[in-house]
């Protein structure tokens, strides 16, 4: 008989990468459903395209590297990357947008650095930034919430629009993006930003129908759905609370200060939290276990940096939303954060 001696902890729940990843993409389902309720069926087609691209790229690159394709498919990390990217881009963007973005995320951002667990940058967000920098028009053409739209789109229409740029009746995306009054609408953050630059006050800018009653039609509920999914992840201990708390604090505190001093020309903290990609970023994107900091203190600092950068870029930067840039910039800071937030092992150094 052998006595096996193992290091502590002796009682633990073993979780494979696959299980962790499965929880992540299960937890975004409420967000996807809310998204499709407000912005139409495009998101499902984008998800399909993203998943197909991710699987094909993953298989191709594993074949080239001489590794097992099945193991890469089984760990489900490519699925999470594809799902997050498909959620992030405008749901009626042309098909090649999502294909280029996903292929770049998998081939360059993930596998050039060595594959699962080796990448420096969050693959989905690096793919998003590539798309945003290269194709600004397509990447800022968000569909308007269906409740405000002139025309409703069927699934066949959506497919036509994504594959060819025109719906079955011959409407272009630009025409479909106009509201009942025929004015093209931007996302709440984009619209607010443009109006502020046109010398309107925040209160005046918020009069537009796109804002509705609750942080923008659709966007508020979308963020609530991602918040719900994120809380499930924290409850399931898939992610620790430090990163989301850091992001939300880092965003809210400076935003509140600015808003208190200058309410006419700044975005209210409520809109900061409930619009754009805030909740998706805080709970699903920033918490990527590979590219985030590793200690709890480090994670909190990492989150604070992301939150503060989101607020800074939204307020003074060149883009209406900022989660992707903030996450990539914070990814670069991770080695430094890890170096200075390394917990002391018991009995080594520290205060005497």
């Amino acid at each position, binding site marked *: 008989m052998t006595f096996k001696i193992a290091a502590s902890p002796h009682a633990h729940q073993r979780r494979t990468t696959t299980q962790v990843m499965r929880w992540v993409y299960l937890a975004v389902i409420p967000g996807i459903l809310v998204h499709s309720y407000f912005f139409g069926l495009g998101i499902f087609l984008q998800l399909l395209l993203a998943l197909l691209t991710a699987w094909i790229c993953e298989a191709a690159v594993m074949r080239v590297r001489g590794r097992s394709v099945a193991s890469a498919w089984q760990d489900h990390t490519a699925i999470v990357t594809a799902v997050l990217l498909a959620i992030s881009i405008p749901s009626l963007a042309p098909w090649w947008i999502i294909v*280029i973005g996903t292929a770049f995320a998998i081939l*360059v951002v993930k596998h*050039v650095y060595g594959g699962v667990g080796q990448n420096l940058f969050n693959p989905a967000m690096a793919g998003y930034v*590539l798309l945003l*920098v*290269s*194709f600004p*028009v*397509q990447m800022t053409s968000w569909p308007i919430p269906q409740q405000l739209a002139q025309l409703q789109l069927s699934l066949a229409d959506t497919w036509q629009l994504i594959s060819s740029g025109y719906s079955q009746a011959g409407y272009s995306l630009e025409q479909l993006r106009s509201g009942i009054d025929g004015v093209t609408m931007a996302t709440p953050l984009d619209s607010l930003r443009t109006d502020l630059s046109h010398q309107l006050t925040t209160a005046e800018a918020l009069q537009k129908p796109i804002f509705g009653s609750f942080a923008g039609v659709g966007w508020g509920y979308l963020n609530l759905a991602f918040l719900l999914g994120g809380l499930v992840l924290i409850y399931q201990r898939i992610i620790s609370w430090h990163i989301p708390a850091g992001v939300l604090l880092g965003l809210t505190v400076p935003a509140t200060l600015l808003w208190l001093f200058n309410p006419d020309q700044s975005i209210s903290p409520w809109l900061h939290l409930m619009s754009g990609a805030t909740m998706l970023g805080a709970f699903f994107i920033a918490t990527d276990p590979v590219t985030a900091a590793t200690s709890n203190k480090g994670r909190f600092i990492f989150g604070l940096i992301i939150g503060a950068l989101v607020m800074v870029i939204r307020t003074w930067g060149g883009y209406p939303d900022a989660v992707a840039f903030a996450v990539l910039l914070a990814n670069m800071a991770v080695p430094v954060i890890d170096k200075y937030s390394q917990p002391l092992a018991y009995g080594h150094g520290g205060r005497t």
Partner: protein
Amino acid sequence: MNAYKELTLQGLWTNNPALVQLLGLCPLLAVTSTVTNALGLGLATLLVLVGSNVTVSLVRDWVPKEIRIPVFVMVIATFVTVMQLLMNAYVYGLYQSLGIFIPLIVTNCAIIGRAEAYASKNPWQKSAFDGLMMGLGFTLVLVLLGAIREIIGNGTLFDGADLLLGAWASELRIELVQFDYPLLLAILPPGAFIVMGFIIAGKNWFDQRQAERAKTPEKQVTRARVTAQ
């Protein structure tokens, strides 16, 4: 003649200033958005490199060791100024599109590196040849990088070649692909880093494969069986 062959190989491949020494990356990454710009800057660097190598090699016995670096920099700066004035006079369009990166050739570490590492220790004929080969290696990488970025980001090759070579060269422009929405990232600085990374990776992969092929298979020793099975 063997020394010259060695210098050629060093400059173009095994010790290529851009791919192996990774020197002069700033202009390399900044101006290679088109083949024309890349070729223009590459040729300017090549000429400065040959000129500075010859001069440094000629004065090497009279320059005290303690102040050699300032002297080399002065020599290089002189050639860069000459180059800049010539470009201003003869290829004004290119001069404008390269802008600050022409005077910045002074700070190109590849040039001072060759002055210090080779020209200050070798006769002028060899130094001139070394400058030519190093410059050529640098130019080739620049042109390759420029070509890849121009194809991906713009779908063309030799766009604006008439700026460098005169009016006849506008015929050189090749429209390879017509993009409705070009991949802007390839033209922007991040694209330069990404493409450069892939070129270096490609070179390393090629070298590794060559090394594996060159490895002679070890002699197989078979044991003589003395007992029957």
